[in-house]
């Protein structure tokens, strides 16, 4: 069982969601986050004084999947979220020990 954590541009969320839906992924959790990577921030001016906008708004999308579906899902996210410009985001994959569906108390892959 793996968790995919994808940081993407906010306006790409719809496309990524649809792409994951097409390969049969039925659930996900999204969070509005802020951060920066190589893109860094940029400077703006308010009433004549410069300030840096270093944390840019992003969407963090989390999906937990059986091992065999991880590659397909990652590929779908990459395909949908890519613009080719700096700031497209990153995908992190981690191992998950267990999962439980609260309603039925199913465990492991069955709970996904």
């Amino acid at each position, binding site marked *: 069982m793996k968790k995919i954590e994808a940081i993407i541009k906010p306006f790409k969320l719809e496309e990524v969601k649809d792409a994951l839906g097409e390969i049969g992924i039925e659930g996900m959790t999204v969070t509005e986050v802020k951060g920066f990577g190589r893109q860094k921030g940029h400077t703006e*001016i308010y*009433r004549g004084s410069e300030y840096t906008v270093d944390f840019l708004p992003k969407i963090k999308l989390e999906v937990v999947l059986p091992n065999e579906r991880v590659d397909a899902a990652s590929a779908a996210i990459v395909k949908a979220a890519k613009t080719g410009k700096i700031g497209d985001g990153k995908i992190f994959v981690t191992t998950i020990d267990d999962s439980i569906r609260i309603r039925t108390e199913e465990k492991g892959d069955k709970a996904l």
Partner: protein
Amino acid sequence: MIKKFLLTAITAITLISAFSPAMLRADDPKPDPNGGNTGVASDVPGFVVSAPAELAGDDLKDTNKVAAYNDAKKAASDYAAQAKLEPLAVKLADNVGHNRVAINFMWTLVTGFLVMFMQAGFALVETGLCRAKNSSHTMAMNFMIYPMGMLGFYLCGFAFMFGGLGAIGTMGGYAGLNHEITLTIAGHPFGILGWKGFLLKGAGYDTAAFCLFLFQMVFMDTTATIPTGAAAERWKFSAFMLYGCAIGTIMYPLFGNWVWGGGWLSQLGTNFGLGHGHLDFAGSSVVHMQGGVIALIFAWLIGPRHGKYDKTGKLVHPILPHNIPMVMLGTFILAFGWFGFNPGSTLAGTDLRIAVIAVNTMIAGSTAALATTLYVWWFKTKKPDPSMMCNGMLAGLVAITAPCAFVSAGGAALIGIIAGIVVVEAVFFFDKIGIDDAVGAISVHGVNGCWGCLSIGLFADGTYGDGFNGVAGNVKGLFYGGGMSQFWAELIGVTTCFVTLSVLSLVVYFAVEKLVGNRVTVEVEIEGLDLPEMGVPGYSGVQMDKDSETPMLKA
């Protein structure tokens, strides 16, 4: 101790107001609290012909004066004879007079209601420009200044300011407010302070006086709410409340009396031949510059907000507004209220100059907003900063407030453009020298209030103002062949405003500092004033983002 004192004071005022005797002297003009006798035939221009004043002394030897006297006397007796023959016509004229005065009452009250609504505009602009963590505090200051200021103005502010006004011409000519404390210097009278109409009792209990009270009270409140923006996000609420006591009772009415209540600045024309004296049609100096100067002194003394400047005084981190839509909505409400502010200052719906005044107000606000936007966009920061757009429109409105009745449309447009550019330079200047004005109040109200008054001396076009401050002829500025005399009167007015209000502000600031202290602790400032000062956040259940926090000083 302070709490007990204030509570006792408020209770005492209420009791005195309710149960004290009427304080009306035998020789006072009779007030008309019911309004039934206000507005008669003599309020119809040119209808009643009164007998001329009797001649005396040298005048009796002047053949021209004697001839004029005889003509006037004959006209008066002709009128009296005719009136006897046509009693119905006199009755009709009485009703026409009552209706004229009623139209003026209506106009003054309704425009006063519009000005009262400007409080909402101020609240939105100031709060929007502050951070979310201080929103309930900033809103509360803008809210409480209304009742606090009102109480002071009711208690004595109105009497100080208008107690020596004399006849209220457009409202039936009630002349009960007739006691001005006057000094005589070098043979000239200098009105210093009014002294009638306390608690709206006695001579103050008259429909015309009440009408004037409402209109002037909301003007005072406009001044009162200006410093709350400049010192926002760090001003103790208790300190602000004490300031609220001072503004309505004496800070505002003193200079107000000198300009609008028949005081010495309005007498510069009759005393020294300086134009029409210090003219300020709707309050560029009386309302806005007074508020701006208080804002300047308070913002300077209380110090900048934590984190905006580094230890060397260099501006390192501009503090962003939390709600620009709120700022813009507030600005529109203010611009709308200004249609009460300026045209209402005729105190007369029957004075058709109101159309010119309203359009001039519209024009100057618009040209200023445009000038600010383009100036910032093209020459300053490469983007059209919306907070500056709003400051720009307000700057134009402030500037046109004094000259609105005296200038042409073209003059209004130019006054607005200059205001729009001046406000940008002023905002950047005060930021640079370390006077942290959270909302631009000093630049908008102080600097442009000053500019607005001076502009009368330059742009007044000689089409209006006959008889203002007792000086015959229309008001003419330098560019219309009026010479410099009006300009000097304006300059004396704004200089006096700056000096007087600076001194009063220093006194009030340090008195409050002694009593309760003006500034919250740095911990409170970092946490935001909402919880420590008010006990409730402005936005409960909403997560604040990084920009809401006070930036920490970088080592």
